[in-house]
């Protein structure tokens, strides 16, 4: 539950062009949505990313956007997912908030 770990994975890398076209600045957040869920992450400019592609480190925030289908091999389809990305003023949920309502 180290805050440093969660700070490192609750981020969304975007290309410089996408970062600019979404009107983002350092520290701003983005809302990512797809058929499986939606999640708010801190936006980060990444010169190594091509346009129209985001990178999120594996972890509980990224997994909100991952479906349960495993294609018969036991492993969910973690990469190459389609998502909609928009700038947002909503905050990034901390780990307890992310799982609130799901507790035993």
């Amino acid at each position, binding site marked *: *539950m*180290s805050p440093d770990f969660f700070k490192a994975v609750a981020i969304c890398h975007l290309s410089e062009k996408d970062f600019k076209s979404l009107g983002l600045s350092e520290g701003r957040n983005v809302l990512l949505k797809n058929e*499986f*869920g939606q999640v708010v992450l801190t936006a980060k400019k*990444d*010169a*190594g*990313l*091509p346009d129209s*592609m985001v*990178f999120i480190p*594996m*972890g*509980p925030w990224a*997994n*909100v956007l*991952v*479906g*349960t289908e*495993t*294609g*018969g*091999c*036991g*492993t*969910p*389809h*973690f*990469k*190459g997912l389609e998502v909609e990305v928009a700038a947002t003023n909503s905050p990034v949920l901390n*780990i*307890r908030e992310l*799982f609130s309502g*799901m*507790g*035993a």
Partner: protein
Amino acid sequence: MSEAIMIKDAVCSFCGCLCDDINVEVEDGKIQRVRHACRLGSSKIMGHARIQSPMIRKNGVLVASSFQEAYDKAAKILLAAAKPLLYGWASTSCEAAKKGILLAEEVGGVLDSTATVCHGPSVIGIEEKGLPGATLGQVKNRADTIVFWGCNPAEAHPRHSLRYSSNSCGKFTQEGREGRKIIVVDVRETKTSKNADKFIRIIPGSDYEVISALRMLVAGKGDNVPDEVGGVSKADLADIAATLKAAKFGAVFFGLGITHSRGRYKNIDNALSLVAELNSHSKFVVMPMRGHYNVGGIGQVLAWSSGYPMSVDFTRGGPYFNPGETAACDLLARRDVDAALIIAADAVSNFPRATAEALAGIPVIQIDPYENPTTLLSDVVIPSAIAGVEVEGTAYRMDGLALRLRKMVDSSFPSDEDILMGILESVHKQRQLAANEGA
């Protein structure tokens, strides 16, 4: 104050590199300094805030208990379940894995490892095709051409390049990085790609097509390859194929970029075929970049105990393996298990959200030194000593080499093995009591 002790050449129990040159300074029973380890390994060995006591959830709140109460409650949950899942095992010793398999057989459960959200597709691909493998020492001493496909060891396995691969100096590779050709294939630039002679950026999900094109080019059937495959020009692909064929000793390391993408185990199957075919031209080996330090070990122990390397169902009286049916994520998504024991893993963080939600609906037992998001959903929490720091044991490096983990300091917590045996003894006791009452 006792005198400081230097433990030399200990094994780091963080990632699949299992670096075995770690020096640890211990004073007054505490680790004071760690030398040679990377930032990740050093942080693991130095440790951080622990779960202090066993806990059992009562009225929605985790309440401190004795270890025996926690073992009894865990045994009760497992006995009451028709099909319990016993999941994790990648960050503990092979000795603990053996006890876990015994428990899974005894209670009739499904035992699965974190491989199913990691290199599970590699395990299946390797079962299909076989693995032209090598030790990391062979790669260090001989490889003049190295491909990193869908992996980023510069960040995930920080000492891999210097100890074993691109930048290492070995018997026949004394020039180190200067004497090697490094190719990186990925969908994005990474720290690893910055160290490459050739970086090939592919379109996400096109690994299978790109590997197929390379196989055609290696086989001399380039006429059938289109001008562009997966976002890579035919000229670039031909250049790579020529480099691979010209290698004296080549090595391919692959990561989750290929196992988690479209095609999954078929990508691995195809990559293994490419490597097998390259052996008609040169010596070539291939290796998955295993993440958790002993995820290879649970696969080994399961394989020699049951015949299968992961996702083993013991509910039928004999081991049964059918990933897609018996893997943890599939079982949870189908609501096909009614209790879970999570050990040395954080299932809640690493499973898709809807899969993790299924865990919230069933009783969960957690065995771990540290609190993590799985703790939030657990009904029984049992803190353990840290294997490889506080307990000795066996672990398998990413190349399949077994190494002995050292005990560096004492712990007041029981080992994973002790905890599993405590639960197993309670299972026997409760069964006997129930039998006596029924008699």
